[in-house]
């Protein structure tokens, strides 16, 4: 595919051919899938790789001296190497496969948090964290008598440098922050946060779940200590995700899950553990999932992050502009296209977000409504729920038009603006 030479619209149309789900009709209308922050759709290239594995190479990896098992092991290791290269980790064994971002964050909390956070230490989070990067730290704070400190967002959904400089101090032991908010789409200044945290010898846990599908990651350049993401939010199947950790940290952490393949020698009363990365990968691993994730990375890189960025930037500006023209719509966070991805939270005057998504659904438009697993941010924004449309590079300008049009009808259904 020579995407470069095509116009944005042509690019998108070409890309959409790879996604079988877009040939669907929802309620008699073509599907406009605008809930990509929740999960993305899967291109045929990814599904094909998974099928190929199960039809030709399936075996338990690491556990056999026969051809099929060796092939499965090789595929699994190649997937790990591909991810290492993709996020530019220094060592392959810094890549730990998990079920998803949530499990990866819990692994860090249980293994690092329970052992290296002490009474009186401070854990700094943003108020916009997804529950998966918030509740585990609450539990650690509770168990270890540590203190949770929040970085608050301003009216643009951004965290100011002042806020960061004020809250990250010598007492800070760990900072847990999303690179991109799953509600506001804000790209947070994580480079500054990481530098500031390191100045105070705190480690930083970066939640890339909402950034890596859109923004090229480089963990060495960021110099981040831990990073996590989920495959299903970046074209891969459900049930696979990644924990990245700096080698020296992972080495000093105890294992999290115990069982097959993560051990060295097991005696009746004691066990020694395998080296990285096996130490953190107990039980039969999800080889099919790892292959799917690796294929998704290949697909993304084949499209190219430059193309993805350009397409999404255009779509996001277009959507923000369209929605702003509706006087009954309030957009949360940044209203222009800067420092943000295509995650757009908004409300419609007098109409509860839940009703908005039901009404849009009748037009085949899939958006999400609710608290988006970010209760504390909702409270901070003085709302109970928002509507959220979240874009990916396979969305179209036409879908945004349909969103805007459908939003014009919403109030009427509830008896406002006279039918």
């Amino acid at each position, binding site marked *: 595919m020579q995407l470069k030479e095509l116009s944005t619209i042509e690019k998108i149309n070409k890309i959409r051919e790879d996604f079988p789900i877009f040939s669907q009709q929802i*309620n008699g209308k073509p599907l406009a899938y605008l809930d990509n922050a929740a999960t993305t759709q899967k291109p045929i290239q990814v599904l094909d790789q998974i099928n190929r594995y199960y039809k030709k190479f399936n075996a338990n990896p690491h556990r056999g001296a026969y051809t099929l098992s060796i092939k499965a092991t090789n595929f699994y290791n190649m997937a790990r190497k591909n991810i290492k290269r993709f996020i530019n980790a220094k060592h392959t064994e810094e890549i730990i496969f998990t079920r998803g971002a949530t499990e990866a964050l819990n692994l860090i909390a249980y293994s690092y948090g329970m052992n290296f956070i002490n009474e009186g230490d401070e854990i700094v989070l943003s108020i916009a964290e997804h529950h998966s990067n918030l509740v585990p730290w609450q539990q650690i704070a509770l168990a270890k008598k540590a203190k949770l400190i929040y970085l608050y967002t301003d009216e643009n959904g951004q965290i100011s440098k002042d806020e960061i400089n004020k809250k990250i101090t010598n007492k800070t032991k760990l900072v847990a922050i999303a690179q991109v908010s799953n509600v506001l789409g804000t790209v947070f200044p994580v480079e500054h946060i990481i530098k500031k945290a390191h100045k105070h010898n705190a480690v930083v846990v970066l939640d890339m779940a909402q950034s890596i599908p859109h923004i090229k990651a480089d963990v060495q350049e960021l110099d981040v200590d831990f990073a996590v993401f989920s495959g299903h939010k970046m074209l891969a199947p459900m049930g696979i995700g990644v924990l990245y950790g700096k080698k020296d940290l992972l080495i000093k952490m105890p294992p999290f899950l115990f069982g097959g393949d993560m051990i060295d020698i097991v005696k009746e009363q004691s066990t020694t553990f395998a080296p990285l990365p096996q130490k953190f990968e107990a039980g039969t691993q999800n080889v099919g999932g790892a292959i799917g994730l690796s294929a998704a990375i290949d697909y993304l890189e084949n499209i190219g992050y430059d193309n993805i960025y350009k397409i999404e930037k255009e779509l996001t500006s277009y959507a923000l502009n369209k929605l702003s023209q509706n006087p009954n719509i309030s957009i949360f966070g940044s209203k222009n296209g800067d420092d943000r991805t295509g995650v757009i939270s908004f409300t419609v005057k007098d*109409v*509860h*977000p*839940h*009703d908005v998504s*039901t*009404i849009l*659904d*009748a037009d085949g438009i899939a958006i999400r*409504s*609710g*608290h988006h697993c970010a209760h504390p941010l*909702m409270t901070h924004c003085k709302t*109970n*729920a928002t509507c959220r449309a979240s874009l990916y590079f396979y969305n179209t300008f036409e879908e945004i038009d349909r969103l805007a049009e459908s939003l014009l009808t919403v109030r009427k*259904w*509830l*008896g406002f603006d006279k039918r």
Partner: protein
Amino acid sequence: MDLNEIYTQVIAEHCSSTKNRREIENPDAYIEGINSSCGDELRIGVKLENGKIKDAAYTGVGCAISQASASIMTELVIGKTIDEAKHLAELFIGMIKREITDESKLEELDEAIALQNISNMPARVKCATLAWHTFEEAVDTALSKEQ
């Protein structure tokens, strides 16, 4: 799915109705019901007298379905005996869960029948039943205080 079956005239009217959207003076019980997945928060108050629902009212935020459901419910139960009111709540919840489908049995629910089509929308079922579950709890709490 036809939106006309969900967002009916009845729903639109009750959703913005303010008749029972108010505080009760000297309530026998106030119970907070929460539907955490969509952020609905409903406080239902009841006042009992001589085995009857003397008054019922609600406050809180929520979607049209949960607000309309609360409005319809309060209008329906005020003045009914406690037993009748509890029976109606069971009937309503049974209707939404599709456990009771016999139209003749549902007649008692009166305007609340307008919510029947919600049973076709799994994601909205909790919105419709929140008021009724909370009401049941409020009545039980009030009764247990009496004793």
